[in-house]
């Protein structure tokens, strides 16, 4: 008997039992089910949620691979700064990739393992099918955490994020907050000393700092991000080229604006990601950046201010550094937590960009404002939609009124 037939028999056997969702999750991964339409339209379009989610994951794979190389590159370049002289030669090396394998891959495995485990448990308890939402969340999480995040912390955060961020609301499609950002926020607020500062962004930086404290005379590894430096009114040596292509320290997958834009192009072309949100987020960030640039140009804020470093950063540079591009393309576009009306998407995206840069400038303790801005707008998205939809409702009422006059 063929695999197909065997699996079909097993499916019939498990039907109605508690384990059915778990079995079906694996079965439908291998084979698209044999369900036929009952009532309603007799034919259906080719897309399902698995396909949609799969496209998003594929859009992130280049960022993940780049992040794995970058993990090693930032580590070695922090020890030997001369590596930065010729980036292209020193970047795509196996040594760099190996650091990626031992540091980034475990993040991916823990994220998926723990998250899908929670999903399966909930699917079995609540007797619904295992939903695909976590396939994307599980990929996002390792890309937005610092490389030196301890795996146990990640595991705790994933459990929190999936249960509180999603399952308590009823699963994929019902949640208010983006689960991946809930996980990130949990990490940030539960372990603030780990998640901020200059020691977590480059592999080995924290370890080396401990060694130095213990009396070793090795050189310290600087693990400062560009945002961190700017927030302290320091300058960095990274060129525009480095910033755009991502040869800079930062969360695993967020550094390469170039690859993120490629991912955005792919998402927009496949019509999976909302171009309205992506474009308006960048617009909002650019607008806020320009306002701050004008404030600096008008000498309202001078170099003595602690806000000067980030406020004087050119508006277009704001779009390349930190997690703004990554957030705009992969996080803000989550259809469940974003605005659901087309008009609302413009407002939602614009405010995310706008508030991101505002938080970035005014919160020097932790200059990465993107995830907070998106979470904030997640909460306000239903309100935005409400007013957009009310516009439609009012138009309908006016039409009726005109009639009776």
């Amino acid at each position, binding site marked *: 008997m063929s695999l197909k037939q065997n699996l079909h028999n097993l499916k019939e056997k498990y039907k109605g039992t508690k384990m059915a969702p778990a079995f079906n999750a694996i079965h439908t991964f291998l084979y698209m089910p044999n369900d036929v*339409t009952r009532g309603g339209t007799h034919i259906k379009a080719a*897309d399902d949620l698995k396909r949609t989610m799969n496209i998003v994951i594929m859009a992130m794979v280049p960022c993940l691979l780049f992040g794995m190389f970058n993990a090693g590159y930032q580590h070695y370049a922090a020890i030997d700064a001369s590596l930065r002289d010729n980036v292209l030669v020193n970047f795509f090396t196996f040594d760099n990739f190996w650091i990626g394998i031992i540091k980034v891959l475990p993040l991916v495995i823990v994220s998926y393992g723990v998250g899908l485990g929670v999903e399966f448990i909930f699917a079995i308890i609540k007797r619904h099918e295992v939903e695909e939402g976590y396939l994307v969340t599980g990929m996002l999480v390792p890309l937005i955490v610092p490389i030196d995040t301890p795996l146990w912390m990640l595991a705790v955060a994933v459990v929190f994020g999936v249960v509180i961020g999603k399952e308590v609301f009823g699963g994929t499609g019902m949640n208010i907050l983006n689960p991946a950002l809930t996980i990130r926020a949990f990490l940030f607020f539960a372990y603030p000393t780990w998640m901020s500062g200059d020691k977590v962004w480059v592999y080995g930086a924290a370890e080396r700092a401990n060694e130095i404290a213990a009396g070793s005379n090795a050189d310290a590894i600087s693990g400062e991000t560009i945002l961190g430096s700017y927030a302290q009114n320091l300058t960095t040596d990274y060129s525009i080229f480095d910033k755009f292509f991502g040869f800079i320290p930062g969360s695993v997958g967020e550094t390469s604006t170039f690859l993120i834009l490629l991912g955005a192009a792919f998402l927009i072309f496949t019509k999976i990601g909302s171009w309205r949100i992506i474009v308006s987020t960048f617009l909002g960030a650019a607008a806020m950046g320009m306002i701050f640039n004008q404030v600096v140009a008008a000498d309202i804020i001078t170099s003595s201010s602690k806000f000067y470093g980030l406020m004087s950063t050119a508006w277009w540079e704001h779009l390349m550094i930190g997690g703004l591009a990554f957030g705009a393309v992969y996080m803000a576009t989550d259809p469940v937590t974003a605005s659901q009306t087309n008009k609302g998407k413009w407002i939602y995206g614009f405010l995310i960009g706008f508030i991101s840069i505002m938080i970035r400038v005014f919160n020097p303790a932790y200059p990465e404002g993107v995830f907070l801005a998106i979470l904030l707008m997640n909460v306000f998205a239903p309100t935005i939609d409400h007013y957009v939809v009310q516009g439609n409702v009012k138009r309908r009422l006016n039409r*009726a009124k005109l009639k009776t006059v």
Partner: protein
Amino acid sequence: MSKDIRIKKGLDIKLIGAAEKTTSQSNLSSVYGIMPEDFHGIIPKLIAREGVSVKAGEAIFLSKDDERILFPSPVSGKLIEVIRGARRKILAVKIAADGKQEYQDFGKKDASKMSAEEVKNHLFTSGCWPFIKQRPFDVVANPNQTPKAIFISAYASAPLAADLDYTLAGKEFELQTAITAISKLTSGKVHVSVSANSSSPLAKLSGIELHKVSGPHPSGNVGTQIAKINPINKGEVVWVVTPQDLVIIGELLLTGNFNATRIIALTGSRFSKPHYVSAIIGASIADITKNNLVNDNTRIISGNVLSGTQVKEDNFIGYYDNQITAIPEGDDYEFFGWNKPVFDKISTSRAFTFSWLNPNKKYDLTTNTNGEHRAFVVTGSYEQVFPLDIYPMQLLKAFMYKDLDEMEALGGYEVAPEDFALTEFICVSKQPHQKIIREGLDLMRQELG
């Protein structure tokens, strides 16, 4: 004055098996069936008993809510069986045709000289009232209301739909007579919509306001046309008649006979020769599709693939349908079907689905759902195929959680299930949109109607 309607949002689903423009005569079936479920919201009360002989046009049941609304037998013969389901609900009334087709005589009428009340009464007694449907709620019209307008769509844009220009050719006289009569029932206009590039027999009628429609499906749906011409507000009613039913009403007025013959399109890839047949309402599927249907794991649909009803060979064609579609069932697994590139299915995305490369290709789609049912996740896709000024997902959700105020405010009065057929087709979460709308409309009708 002719007001043109141009639709941009929508989707033409191109399938294999369009009907070739030849009409064959189907023999008189031995058994005909009328299914009360075709008349949504009507509670039937039988007036003819099993074993009684009826003529064509003679009532066999009536509506419990309004006993003036009669439902006639399409043929002359003997009522042989009443099939009942759970709680004795009448599923079908079967009539064995006697082969002679004797008509009950309702008398010839001069439509132009009839008053509104006379027209109404004539439609009641002759059993033609059920042909008139109403919006809101998409049910048989309530005769106690006066519609603000009557809408007739003479353009069918649904997948593989019967070409009305072809099936109605030569029926100008009947159509004109029927329109003269029913135009007396409204205080407003009779709006007739035809395809922009067609020679519809309805284009030259008098007493109508003509609209030329262009654009992808659902431009031919009467709901779309109402929304563009004269949208329904709270408290308003419009009536809707299909042109094929107008022909029957016209013939009734001209000859006095209820002749429920219509030209039916046999479409879909499972017909060896898709073409048109002339048959009487209620004919059995087996008789109409004889020697033509490849009935091997085939889905037979009375109506089109989007809004039709699934039937078996021993069932009957739906009362309002002028199309039978047969497509392959899709009850098979597909290895890695969720991530491999797809060339043989239609999609509005480009998520490794390649139907956008070749917009004119015709597809042989199966009934596979192409994925499992999920909660609503994707946003913004329905709007691309939904031309009404309504937020489709918000309305669907309001219909699901049954908030009557929201259902009303978001446009619940303006929609019919068929308006949500395309959104259901493209739905990534495989939600049953038409069912949600139907149940919501029933609730609205019960609570607000």
